[in-house]
């Protein structure tokens, strides 16, 4: 990974120097050993602080929303799974392709202080959905993290409705509504979130129970359904360690089963299973039956 980082750094400095890009979106070291943070570099000098390696877990796609509005091109470093988020944002017309120079970064699985990241345990792909050039190594092309991505969901499905309710009540009751999940999510890109919009009526209602407050997460999961690439950033940034990715994965699993395998951000089709209709679609009766199980 050190070697990849060095090549990447040299390439970024060169692209800055020849004017291809005006800035570089990457990572820098934080205060602790593990907390590498997304960072913006505008010249070779600043690039001294640039790092790439095992702790560059953050998905930089969402930062591109603002960067895309700046003058000139931005170089953005995207790991294979990050390219899905980026491409999904292109599909949704939130990013303009020509505003970015994308370096696809080889990845051997990312970590934090507790070890491999959740998303890396069940690595989706080593393919880059979108890029201008790839900087990787033989090592980084090998598969990593072969755990069953839906194992956690299957466990939840085994529970009775009451057990599941208790599980989520337990998890979600820890939520402090810091909005970190919403802020980091590359699918949560609304100019104004419904939860911040007084006219939507959700803000002005007092919750009947403390649990209702946490319906926020369920509503959020529905809002990103079909567009969520399962990048796992929501769970990664949650200071309360709520397994939010399980909500998204449940919806992905259901959609895959009802409408066929689908990975948001992959391919060139802008339509998602939830915004398209085909004659082969599951009938509402089937959805209803499954809902009762």
């Amino acid at each position, binding site marked *: 990974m050190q070697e990849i980082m060095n090549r990447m750094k040299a390439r970024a400095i060169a692209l800055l120097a020849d004017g291809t890009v005006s800035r570089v979106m990457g990572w820098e070291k934080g205060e602790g050993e593990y907390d590498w943070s997304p960072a913006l570099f505008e010249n070779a000098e600043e690039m001294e602080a640039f790092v790439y390696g095992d702790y560059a877990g953050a998905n930089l796609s969402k930062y591109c929303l603002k960067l895309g509005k700046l003058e000139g091109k931005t170089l953005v470093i995207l790991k294979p799974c990050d390219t899905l988020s980026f491409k999904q944002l292109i599909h*949704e*017309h*939130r990013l303009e392709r020509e505003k970015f120079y994308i370096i696809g970064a080889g990845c051997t699985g990312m970590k934090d202080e507790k070890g491999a990241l959740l998303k890396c345990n069940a690595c989706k792909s080593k393919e880059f959905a979108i890029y201008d050039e790839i900087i990787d190594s033989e090592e980084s092309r090998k598969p990593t993290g072969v755990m069953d991505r839906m194992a956690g969901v299957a466990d939840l499905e085994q529970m009775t409705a009451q057990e599941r309710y208790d599980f989520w009540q337990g998890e979600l009751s820890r939520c402090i509504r810091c909005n970190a999940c919403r802020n980091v999510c590359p699918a949560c*890109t*609304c*100019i*104004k*979130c*419904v939860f911040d*919009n007084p*006219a*939507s*009526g959700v803000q002005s209602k007092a919750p009947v129970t403390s649990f209702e407050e946490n319906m926020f997460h369920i509503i959020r999961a529905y*809002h*990103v359904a079909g567009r969520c690439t399962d990048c796992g950033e929501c769970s990664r940034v949650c200071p309360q360690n709520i397994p939010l990715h399980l909500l998204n994965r449940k919806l992905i699993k259901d959609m895959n089963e009802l409408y066929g395998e689908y990975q948001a951000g992959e391919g060139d089709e*802008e*339509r*998602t299973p*939830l*915004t*398209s*209709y085909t004659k082969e679609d599951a009938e509402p009766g089937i959805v209803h039956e499954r809902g009762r199980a």
Partner: protein
Amino acid sequence: MQKIGVFVCWCGSNIAGTVDVEAVAEAMKTVPGVVFSTHYQYMCSAAGQKLIADAIHEHHLDGIVVASCSPRMHENTFRKTAEAAGLNPYMVEIANIREQCSWIHKDKEEGTAKAIVLAKAAVAKLLHNKPLTAGTSAVTKRCLVIGGGIAGIQTALDVADAGYEVDIVEQRPTIGGRMAQLDKTFPTLDCSACILTPKMVEAAQNEKINIISYAKVEKVDGFVGNFRATIRKKARCVDETKCTGCSLYMNKCPSKKGKDEFNMEMNNRPAIYIPFAQAIPNVAVIDPEQCVKLKTGKCGLCQKVCTAGAIDYTQQDELMEREYGAIVVATGFKPIDPSPLNEYGYAENADVITSLELERLMNAAGPTKGTLLRPSDLKHPHEIVFIQCVGSRCDENTKRGKPYCSKICCMYTAKHAMLIRDKYPDTKVHVFYIDVRTPGKNFDEFYRRAVEQYGVDYIKGMVGKVAREGDKLMVRGSDLISNQQVEIAADLVVLATAIEPDPSARSIGTMLTASMDTNDFFTEAHAKLRPVESPTAGIFLSGVAQGPKDVPETVAQASAAAAKVIGLLAKDHLVTNPCVAGSDELLCNGCSQCEKVCPYGAITYVDKEVRGPGVREVRRVAQVNPAVCQGCGACTVTCPSGAMDLKGFTNQQIMAEVDAICL
């Protein structure tokens, strides 16, 4: 605070039988915003409407809730009442306490409680209603008729007669449809061609009618009054403007393997042909599957003999775009293929034929020139068995045929039996039937003539097996009246096969977003009161496309559809539905999800300068064409930011209803 009036309807005993209407009216008096509440026996009657109008004036009401039947029934009635009394018509809400309450409940106490909740929800919604104003859209004064059978021809003639332009798009090389294939028509036994072909000629000569044959509608956009259709005119390889219909080529064409579709494929035709002598347009067509020239490049004999120089092997399909105000679906039917019903042995025995094949065998222009000869050995049949309801009236679960009655078979079988007995008195004719259905003017008399005057042997019962033995067909069936098994050694067996919608109907239905039933017949807007209109505005139904019909009924419906089309085309402007979607540009992300779910193509995206508090930038935002939007609401539930909202059914209104019910 708004002043709201609530009007609870008894609907005779329809509502009052299971809902205590007085208690509902009383309970509503305590609801915030309600200043007047009453009940009446028939709110939709003149007296009921007057009661509403008087209350609006007397109590200075801002909006009204009518607790009555489904809004599909009388929402418009009460909107007009309110408008006449000076209210905006969209300040009316209907609480459906009939279909959604009284009709489905037996317990009066529960029914009453539910009716109160439904009325409260309507009040909660109404408190958020805003006056809406309908816009107008222009009407293109031209009609598209899809299908050129007797239904399409009749509709076209009537619409053209009123002075409007009509295009008939027919998929086959000629108009005329199924009726052109018939020999005689019941109950008067006129020669079918003698009454149809003059109408075909009339259509061709009418300067308002444009016949686009050998063509299909590929795409339809737009909405009532403003449809735009893309029509593919298939390459005939014959110049329609030059061809004189001389038929000189017929004997020259070396290809003789094409199946004569007009004669139910019972004989062959050349690769270049005119379907029948009276075809309109009387222009040849080259079958690209059979033409030697088109397949190998070597031949060109027809081009050599054509003195008019009409043959053009290089002709390509032509795409044309046309605009229409109204579209009539007259796609007709085809008989089912009875091969899968193997007890009748249709696939194995040439002498088991369908009724439409018999029509051709009895027709002077048919493969046997009108002499009744059986297909296998061209001998005259002396004993004929007709079997009714083949593939009709089947138990849906058995999947052996159609669940419906094909309606025309009883009468045409009586016709066939009678004609055969008349022409060949030495022939014995038996008819196996489940019931004989003859509800039509002079129909029963006709059937009785077959039995009483012509001695046709009607056997009540169905056939279990048709099997060949020597040169006979052994027909085994049951006679339910004598309670005996019967076996008849027949020379010819005729199956009264069920009819089904033409295979093109399904794709046309999808294209037009016109609803269809499970059998692919087009659904009418109201089974009794709007039988010739599709629920999709501007789409009208003519003939068997809507359900099985005989010729007189088809013609009656075709003229009825024409009357509806004329009523539409006579208008210069249409009032549009103001309950359409609209996007809040300040909230719109430009993500295009709404555009993708919109079934009407009403949403487009534009780059636009958006201004608001602290905002002034160019953004990609959604725009709704209110003339195209049908108010279905798919976009509003897809929009993640809530930028898209539906007038008259805003998120706020719907949440208020939900709160009124749940809180």
